[in-house]
């Protein structure tokens, strides 16, 4: 696409933002321009100020927080400060990450009307505009629905419709798919892709998972840990030249780039540039079939997996407020096993995990932990042998310092102080939090909070660890460290049950996958077999992991011959 380089319309000059009372800026000296019709990917490790920058561009910051913004932002040559309150929001719209807290009305129609009313749209035009915006995101049948009855994916589509109804020239997407299951997230990206064709807005995208976005973007702006610009240029250059640096900063790479990097290191990738798409990757591989084996990160099952069952669930059902949330579920977890639970948003995964942790009481059926009914366990004994990591790490912090957070459960066990000290230090070292030992848990960064919440659950050496989407919203480094901790846990004979939307984790770590849909178990077995069950994948809103997609495409490539298959692949 030819860009009109000469007519940038959004521009920042030497932008620096500090929270009040803090010396270290969130980001600093950011020079950045946005051109009409362009799509820019804003990348950076978690906590580097991507969202803050986005809020500044939209004039939400610094007004909404105590902070100071230095430098200038110009929109069409006019300083942002010169715009009347609320005026800029018509031109620059934003979709936020959390589907729960971006609405203030109760019905879909009213929510859309709210924005249009704010812009002083004549009431007789509002109805028509609402319909148009809803049609763009395929939500028209839900016009009169209550917002709280919508699914996460639908809520994000509604948020998008709200912004689109104002006809913005710039659309900022702040991790819009972070809370969505794979299929909903794919649907949202497809809608945005579609819209991008017909509508003439520019896009600023903040995302962790890049695969669905990469072919949509023209340019990348990368911030490093210090909040300075690391790179600003074309997407291809970004990943070709800086893939290594990006990885070191903890930035998620698109799967093809990551695979390409791996292949290059192994000497089986002959392409000059790192591949951005699957097609490029396959074209560049010396021997695609052999490469699959090298690229495949599926773990090798440890020899002689012990057959000792530590948790077994029999005909489990759970009702709440007259609704059947879980129906007749049975399965078991063996010692040293990694069990993943997958399924679409609202399929009952979290409810199941709470039942397994003994937080809810089953309506029907039994849960046996070490051949003993969960309800017969003494609370304290159970907690020392079974850990649970919540989706939101903040929920489980109970002490005033990071140190006490880890020491807490050890103190309950009445361990001698010297032992506690030693154990806490080892534990904090393991998750790189030793230098923050005296801080309040709430003042840690997102990734640090996550690591602390896991560490506090690992210190007791519980035999079974339940985790509710622990990698959600984390940068690549944190996610990798987290999975390393899990591996370590398994190696030492522990078992892990993890709820996750991440198909790559499912593929690379899980011994067994359980898929839920509408409170029923629709699959239990190896992940490899799951990818072949297309019906189940569709019902549960799952997507095949990258390596599996690659395998299928390479197969097709082999069948159809080199020339045409490359075309097909890039189209697919």
């Amino acid at each position, binding site marked *: 696409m030819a860009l009109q380089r000469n007519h940038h319309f959004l521009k920042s000059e030497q932008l620096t933002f500090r929270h009040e009372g803090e010396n270290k800026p969130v980001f600093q000296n950011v020079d950045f321009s946005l051109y009409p019709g362009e799509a820019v990917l804003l990348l950076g490790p978690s906590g580097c100020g991507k969202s803050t920058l986005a809020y500044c561009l939209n004039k939400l910051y610094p007004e909404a927080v105590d902070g100071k913004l230095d430098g200038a932002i110009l929109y069409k040559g006019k300083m942002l400060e010169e715009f009347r309150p609320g005026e800029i929001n018509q031109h620059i719209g934003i979709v936020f990450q959390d589907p729960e*807290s971006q609405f203030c009305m109760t019905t879909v129609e009213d929510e859309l009307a709210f924005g249009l009313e704010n812009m002083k749209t004549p009431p007789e035009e*509002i*109805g028509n505009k609402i319909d148009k915006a809803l049609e763009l995101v395929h939500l028209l049948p839900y016009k009169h629905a209550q917002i709280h009855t919508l699914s996460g994916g639908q809520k994000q589509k509604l948020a998008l419709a709200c912004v689109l109804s104002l006809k913005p020239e710039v659309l900022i997407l702040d991790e819009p798919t972070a809370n969505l299951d794979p299929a909903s997230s794919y649907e949202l990206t497809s809608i945005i892709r579609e819209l991008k064709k017909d509508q003439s807005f520019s896009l600023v995208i903040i995302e962790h998972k890049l695969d669905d976005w990469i072919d949509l973007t023209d340019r990348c702006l990368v911030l490093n840990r210090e909040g300075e610009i690391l790179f600003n240029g074309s997407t291809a250059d970004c990943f070709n030249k800086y893939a290594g640096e990006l990885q070191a900063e903890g930035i998620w790479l698109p799967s093809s780039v990551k695979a390409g990097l791996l292949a290059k290191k192994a000497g089986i990738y002959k392409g000059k540039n790192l591949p951005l798409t699957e097609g490029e990757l396959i074209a560049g591989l010396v021997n695609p079939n052999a490469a699959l084996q090298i690229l495949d990160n599926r773990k090798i099952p440890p020899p002689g997996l012990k057959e000792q069952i530590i948790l077994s669930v029999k005909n489990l059902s759970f009702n709440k407020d007259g609704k059947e949330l879980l129906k007749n579920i049975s399965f078991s977890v063996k010692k040293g096993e990694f069990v993943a639970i997958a399924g679409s948003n609202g399929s009952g995964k979290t409810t199941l995990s709470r039942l397994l942790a003994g*937080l809810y009481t089953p309506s029907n059926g039994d849960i046996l932990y070490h051949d003993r009914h969960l309800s017969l366990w003494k609370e304290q004994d159970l907690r020392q042998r079974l850990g649970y990591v*919540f989706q939101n790490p*903040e929920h489980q912090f109970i002490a005033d310092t990071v140190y006490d957070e880890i020491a807490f459960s050890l103190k309950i066990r009445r361990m001698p102080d010297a032992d506690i000290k030693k154990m806490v230090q080892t534990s904090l070292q393991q998750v790189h939090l030793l230098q923050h030992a005296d801080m309040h848990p709430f003042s840690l960064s997102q990734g640090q909070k996550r690591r602390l919440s896991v560490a506090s659950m690992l210190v007791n050496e519980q035999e079974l660890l339940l985790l509710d989407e622990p990698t959600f919203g984390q940068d690549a480094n944190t996610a990798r460290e987290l999975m390393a901790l899990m591996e370590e846990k398994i190696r030492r004979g522990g078992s892990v049950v993890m709820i996750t939307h991440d198909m790559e984790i499912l593929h690379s770590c899980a011994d067994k996958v359980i898929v839920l849909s509408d409170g029923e178990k629709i699959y239990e077995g190896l992940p490899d077999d799951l990818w072949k069950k297309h019906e189940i994948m569709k019902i549960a809103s799952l997507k095949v992991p990258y390596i599996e997609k690659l395998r299928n495409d390479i197969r097709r490539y082999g069948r159809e011959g080199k020339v045409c298959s490359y075309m097909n692949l890039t189209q697919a």
Partner: protein
Amino acid sequence: MLLHEFNPSIKALTVVVCVLVLSIFFDPVTPFLTLAVTAAATFIFGRVSFRRWILLFSPFIFMALIYIWSALVFSKAIEGETILWTWGIFTLTEESFQRALSLGMRVLSFTSLSLLFMLTTKPAEFLLSLMQQCRLPPKLAYGIMAGYRFLPLIKEEFDIIRNAHRIRGVPKARTLSEKLAELKRYAVPLLAGAIRKAERTAMAMESKGFTGDRNREFYHKISVSWKDWAFFAFFIAVVLASAYVSWLFGFLQLYNGKL
């Protein structure tokens, strides 16, 4: 014609004025008749089921009974009153019985009027009407509306935090000081969560161009027509007619600081 269709602000005004007018009188019959008409209107024109209504109404019956009871037991017999019954130090006179009944009926009639409003008005429409008819600042109105959505979430959050603490093996709080410490432990994450949610919602509202400006367009226009005033007049008339009937039967008394 449904009660839901009337202008919420006028409906609220009607309830307030009826309550004020009822306060002038102090006899059991006036509030009882008003109560009967109000309840009937709620069922017939409000399409409210009796079950739902009585569920909300019953606590007030209980309260009214307590009023009556205490007024009976602790009232002093005044010279010249007709004594109905004496037992030891307790004396029940006809007049004090009537006073107690009046008080109980008054409570119930107020309740029935409030229920008529509550059960036939959508909170969102009431707020819209307050903005459009009573110049309530939009900042306040939309703030309340957004907060209203959060109420169920707070309970959910509270449950999650309690579970999270259980998971950590926190022993059950038994003594008062333990319970206080527990409350403190819950309060920090609960507040932190609430503040973060509120901040996010506020930002989302601002990002849609909300400034709190009083000059705004409304997609849903809540209008006032002669029907709304007719509604107002009807209910005032009901109260006055009740008083008239009460007067016909010789019950009517004005309130002059009794009890």
